[in-house]
């Protein structure tokens, strides 16, 4: 046996031990039901998307999706064990079965979908990469950044987009790649870098944490498409369907006017709207097809409300982040949010 082979074998052994159980192809749904909790992978902390409230509970836009899913599958929006993951640890955690679903502002890309063996179940936030810098720099566009130092989080698509952006514009920069959002932000605040780059939503979130937010500005350039959404392991189609249609239920609920306040009432008896009836289980047997009961979507919506309610509560115009709906409005309101029908 050559050295290389031995090293390889040891590495393999180490990785397997680290991963614990080998991921099964079998029904994730059964595993989740048996465990009684949904293992949901979330950010290590990003205002608006995943953060702890005053009582120490995880909450936010990405967390709300976990709660809807736990409610749909287990009947309890709190039956979740949260696993905090960095940009680097998220994929091995999902691949190894450490988590059941990843809801951590993750960009849906070709290679992640095809090569890494994951299934993206939809888009819950259409984002794009931007730059934030001090207004004192006196520049108005990211194309004027020739020679600047740029802080980035490692292991993200932003690192790649950044290289592309500067290459295409023929300007130079010094990348300062840092592991977590918090440390990258600290480096930016200490002026180790001139600008910080991440998804525009993340920039808005980060800006709220600065001592003097008005001293910083987000540049107008959006340099990439970043469709963020939840994902699951490839190979368990039933589980992927549950994840996909939980998200679709929240979007459809907004479209049809089903809210956290009125969902119970609407589900009590069949109403006039056939699609609402089908979704809430008062007509047909959509829940059974998914391997769940008829009330699954009712619980998902009751957990934190429909898409609009979740959006407004955590990241909308009246929240500290103050993000507009923009592309994330329903297709009927000029956005591109569009759920296939419940039929």
């Amino acid at each position: 046996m050559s050295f290389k082979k031995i090293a390889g074998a040891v590495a393999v052994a180490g990785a397997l031990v680290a991963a614990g159980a080998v991921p099964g192809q079998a029904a994730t749904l059964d595993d989740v039901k048996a465990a009684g909790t949904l293992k949901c992978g979330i950010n290590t902390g990003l205002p608006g998307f995943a953060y702890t409230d005053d009582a120490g509970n995880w909450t936010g836009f990405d967390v709300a999706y976990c709660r809807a899913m736990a409610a749909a599958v287990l009947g309890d929006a709190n039956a979740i064990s949260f696993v905090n993951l960095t940009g680097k640890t998220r994929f091995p955690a999902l691949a190894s079965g450490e988590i059941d679903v990843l809801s951590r502002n993750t960009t849906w890309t070709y290679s992640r979908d095809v090569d890494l063996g994951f299934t993206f179940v939809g888009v819950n936030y259409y984002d794009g990469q931007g730059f934030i810098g001090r207004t004192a720099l006196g520049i108005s566009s990211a194309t004027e950044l020739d020679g600047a130092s740029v802080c980035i989080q490692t292991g993200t698509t932003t690192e790649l987009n950044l290289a592309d952006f500067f290459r295409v514009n023929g300007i130079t920069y010094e990348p300062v790649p840092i592991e977590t959002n918090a440390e990258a932000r600290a480096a930016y605040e200490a002026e180790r870098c001139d600008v910080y780059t991440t998804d525009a939503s993340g920039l808005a979130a980060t800006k709220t944490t600065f001592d003097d937010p008005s001293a910083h500005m987000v540049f107008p350039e959006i340099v990439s498409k970043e469709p963020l959404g939840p994902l699951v392991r490839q190979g368990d189609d039933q589980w992927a369907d549950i994840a996909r249609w939980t998200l679709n239920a929240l979007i459809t609920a907004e479209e049809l006017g089903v809210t956290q306040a009125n969902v119970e009432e609407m589900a009590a008896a069949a109403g006039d709207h056939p699609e609402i009836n089908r979704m809430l289980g008062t007509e047909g047997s959509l829940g059974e097809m998914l391997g769940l009961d008829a009330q699954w979507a009712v619980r998902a919506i009751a957990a934190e409300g429909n898409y609009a309610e979740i959006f407004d509560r955590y990241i909308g115009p009246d929240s500290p982040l103050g993000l507009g709906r923009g592309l994330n409005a329903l297709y009927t309101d000029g956005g591109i949010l569009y759920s296939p029908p419940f039929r």
Partner: protein
Amino acid sequence: MSERPAPPRGGGFDISRAWTDERARGVIFQILIVLGVAGLAAFIVINTITNLREAGLSSGYGFLFDTANFDINQRLLDYASTSTYGQAFVVGALNTILVAVMGIIAATVIGFVTGVLRLSNNFLVSRIVGVWVEFTRNVPVLLQIIFWWLIMLALPRVKDSISIGDAAFLNNRGIFLPSPVFEDGSAIVLAMILIGVIGAVLVGRWARKRQEATGRTFPVGWVGLGLIVGIPVIVYVALGQPLDFDIPEKKRFNLKGGFNITPELIALWLALSTYTGAFISEIVRGGILSVSKGQTEAAGALGLRRGLTMRKIILPQALRVIIPPMTSQYLNLTKNSSLAVAIGYQDIVSIGDTILNQSGQALEVISLYMAFYLVLSLLTSAFMNWYNKRIALVER
């Protein structure tokens, strides 16, 4: 291992007696162990391959030829975002080697100086060094790395850079030094330096031989300095200073031009060399204490000065005790450099993690880390063993 009494021979090999025969039993155990290890390895490999295939994941090292698409801020080789993952790995490996070599040199100097100072008769000096050693080696190295990094970040900003003669600058984005630009004739100066180094070595040899033969000493240090620095400087001036410097210049965002040492490298280097230096300090102290006091007294009786006693009598003997444990400190320092990822120094692990994340080839990337650190450690050990043999007591 000493020779064992040979088992009774003759009468041929009796299979039923195999268990009572010491040598046969040894062979049987060896075979069983080899089979066990091979079986375990085969199980691990087959299990992994099966699982990778079931999960629909590709494997192999072909991804190393794919385009990396990300940038690296400190590169000792030409590298751009259009280079391959394999090239990125090499750049990362060189960054690790750079900080490891710098760290080993600094840690050794720090260790030797503080180790000797700790044995000083001056109460204040030995106490201060003692407190420093205990503090430094008992605080986790990761915290020390972040501590030094935060100190670097607390330096003045770019626009308030500390300037040294308007040529070198210090700010929270690192140290900016003028970089040499070689013009016609500079090759002659470089050649003179090389000739000076060779000359100094030859003079040193000659001086040692002469001292062994006649007992007369020769000022090798001064002559060597003259050969290596003095003559090239004269030649440099005579040729009309054929060396120019690219001086860092303030641009809109950063200093441009010259040579930049990043704050991450400085922080990592300081943290690793002081942390490991504290351990080496204790090793040096132990080594010196292991040399019997009689040696010092004998040297004193012969009229040798204290410094000379330390250099010529004590340290050469202490080195034999110092070198072996020092090797493991060097290995520790090299491996601790992988903590660089916390502050964004792009060493092999930091870059490898990015590659891992972009390509998804976790097992392959981790196996490359292991192979790299293994080779680096074995090379360090081999060098130190060679050195240890060289300085070992020559028994006559």
